[in-house]
């Protein structure tokens, strides 16, 4: 399989990200206007300077008009993309390719989701007409299957695993407490997390990401043009997207302790970026912590821990803000909620912020300085359910290789 990547061919020159939360007083249009304006201001350009747009949203609108109407875009290409929970990342990936191809000079990738207008708890997705035989379990139930399978395979007892999952939620909330854009901006005690009412399987309400509204946007140009706009562009090192055969739910050999799609997209991304030891080389990672067991399994799938050891690394604080490899320094989906189309770009926004040394109270020590050794960051999105998902991995960096 050929996957050449576009390492150091395009750069991010500006980003914007709204606060995430229950925006009862903001519409999808408002969120798009806010994040795009912030991104344009960050890049120091006007809307007219943007040649083409990629809009990611799963359920907040259809077609490019969802963006061109509120922004009053004057007859330019606006592409609407959807790829489950990786939708925002998918908008970014395709926007990058458009610039790398030479088709456009300046493009915008923008993601948005307005979840809080539905009136329901959790994520609501309308399905195509069907014969009614599809499993009707909710997302927390699907992901809760990981916990007993992992514990069983690696001999972790139930109480110990609960501690591990609790610590993941605790860590992400702790990081989110330092982030003014987060939906939940306060620390939550381990006791509160562990005692929260059960939603599905072993997962309590604090093991689940929140439900919020939000939007984020990035402006992308060719690498050679980047310094016209900023002294500190962020370079795209790798973009990998994988959809699998969705065979987990029908294949008895699948054991619910891994996401094959993530392993494939991570390996592809590391190859594109020239990364051989992600745990040592990456300054930070933003990963798809939709539910606490997801983050646990991702640590192994992304190569941040040996198989069967991530639970120990979590307990040891390896992925804390001051740990060996900070994971979800902005607070993750846990603190931000998961407005589908926006999440991937929100993750990228944290890489942009940290690698430029602009993260304030949650700035990772030794990252984002002129003499920083670690200059690369990773984002990871996945959509679907264990055994049947899509996965996206990007690597970005503040230095050209």
């Amino acid at each position, binding site marked *: 399989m050929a996957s050449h990547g576009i390492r150091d061919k395009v750069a991010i020159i500006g980003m914007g990200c709204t606060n995430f939360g229950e925006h009862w007083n903001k519409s999808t249009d408002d969120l798009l206007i806010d994040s795009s304006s912030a991104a344009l201001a960050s890049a120091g350009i006007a809307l007219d300077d943007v040649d083409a747009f990629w809009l990611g949203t799963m359920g907040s609108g259809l077609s490019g008009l969802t963006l061109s109407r509120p922004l009053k875009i004057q007859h330019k290409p606006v592409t609407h993309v959807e790829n489950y929970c990786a939708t925002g990342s998918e908008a970014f990936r395709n926007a990058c390719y458009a610039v790398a191809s030479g088709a456009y000079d300046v493009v915008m990738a923008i993601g948005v989701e307005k979840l809080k207008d539905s009136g*329901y708890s959790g994520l609501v997705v309308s399905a195509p007409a069907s014969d009614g035989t599809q499993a009707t379990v909710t997302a927390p139930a699907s992901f809760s299957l990981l916990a007993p399978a992992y514990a069983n395979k690696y001999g972790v007892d139930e109480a110990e695993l609960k501690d591990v999952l609790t610590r993941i939620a605790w860590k992400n909330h702790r990081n989110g407490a330092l982030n003014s854009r987060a939906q939940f901006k306060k620390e939550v005690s381990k006791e509160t997390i562990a005692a929260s009412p059960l939603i599905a399987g072993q997962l309590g309400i604090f093991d689940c990401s929140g439900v919020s509204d939000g939007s984020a946007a990035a402006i992308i140009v060719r690498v050679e043009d980047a310094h016209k706009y900023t002294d500190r562009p962020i370079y795209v090192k790798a973009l990998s997207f994988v959809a699998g055969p969705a065979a987990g739910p029908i294949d008895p050999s699948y054991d619910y302790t891994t996401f094959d799609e993530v392993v494939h997209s991570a390996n592809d991304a590391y190859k594109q970026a020239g990364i051989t030891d992600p745990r040592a080389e990456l300054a930070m990672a933003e990963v798809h912590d939709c539910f606490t067991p997801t983050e646990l399994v991702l640590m192994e799938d992304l190569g941040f821990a040996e198989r069967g050891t991530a639970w120990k690394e979590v307990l040891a604080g390896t992925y804390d803000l001051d740990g060996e490899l900070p994971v979800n320094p902005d607070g993750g989906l846990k603190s931000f909620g998961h407005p589908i189309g926006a999440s991937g770009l929100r993750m990228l926004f944290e890489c942009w912020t940290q690698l430029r040394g602009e993260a304030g109270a949650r700035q990772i020590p030794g990252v984002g300085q002129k003499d920083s050794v670690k200059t690369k960051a990773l984002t990871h999105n996945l959509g679907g359910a264990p055994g049947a998902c899509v996965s996206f991995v990007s690597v970005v960096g503040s230095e050209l290789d």
Partner: protein
Amino acid sequence: MTGIISYGAYIPYWRLQRSTLASALGSGGAKGARAVASFDEDTTSMGVEASRIALRGVSEKYSPQSLWFATAEPGYLDKTNANAIHAALSLESSVNAFDCLGSVRSGIAAVHAAASGNSIAVLSDIRTGLPGGSDESMGGDGAAALCFGTENVIAEFLSTGTSTSEFVDRWRTPGDQASKQWEERFGEYAYAPLVEVAFNEALKKANLTAADVSHSIFSGLHTRAVKAAPKSCGINLDTLRDDFAATLGNSGTAHWGVMLANVLDTAQPNEVIAIVVLADGVNVILLRTTEALSAHQKQQDPSLTVQAQIAAGRNDLSYAQFLTWRGFLHREPPRRPEPDRPTGPPSLRTAAWKYGLYGSRDESGFIYLPPARVSLQSGSIDKMEMVRMADIRATIATYTVDHLAFSMSPPVVAAVIDFDGGGRFQCELTDVDPASVKIGDRVEMSFRKLYTQDGIHNYFWKAKPVRTGVK
């Protein structure tokens, strides 16, 4: 010689103790329990379960002409309910499927029709009444299926007797949740002469006397008339067989079928069975067991006898849950969207899957649920054979308890199950205690009504724990 070649009774898992009912309503305490169809069952799905049990006892060559379905509580009007049973049993399209609906007496019609050809009669009913009434406490839910044929007959059809009379005893207007009954003593008066006439007619046709009867089954919703009937027939009261008043309640249309199944579970060869059904008249059927019955009993799964199913029931259903399941108590739904209605064209395209639980098996032996066209490993297209999974047991690979999913009876217990011999499937578990589920538990498939939306019943399969009812 035409007769019954196989049979099956299906008793739902749940029991409502009459003491539970009495303590909730503060009324007098009748003894025993009634059987309760679960929230995901209706007369059609229970009919499928009874038929599956019956079809276990016939040879693979058995090819029925028709399937006759009788119930007083149909899932649909206008649309034939028997077709879903026909589809779930994966019968050929050349096999008829007919309904006999509305009255308790319909069960007799289905059996008469089935006996006149090599056909299957399926009797099913869900009985309840207004809270506090005797129909609610003394009714029961269940189904029975009888396969008729000419080879390997286990009970030959000797004769029938009938007496029909129009009188107002019990009635229900379509759409009503409960039936009404005239003053009890009037029904007793009206039924008494009809019993004698019909019974004597049947005896005469078979050239038998009342003393020849080894097992007698008296069934009907008019309790007093049913109780008085054996005496007027001159039947030896020792031949009266269990009417399950204490353990299951009266399952109306299906009731005598369940009683007959229980008799056939233990009867000896060459015994005469008298069935007397009081329903808007009286119908009598006389059967004689054959030598083939013993062999049939031996090959039967001991967990599927009526007694074993009674023993395997769960006794702690709450009255509130019962009322909710039967639609008498509207409870706050979860804050989740209601499920979409199953749509017509996809349901037709996938009928073998949706109703027959067929998967597809590729060249390597990998089984796809639902059926797939492309092989996972080789990528070859349409190199598949269809394989029926409904009667294969499976083991729980992993599971979860979903407190958020929409359900009439939360929480939803969802499991990933691996079938013996291959095939993985993610489905709901039913008739299960969420706290007792474990990885490695054995399950079997059960045909259920997942939900009803826009009046369309979404029938599909769930898994339930394998229970050996014999205690």
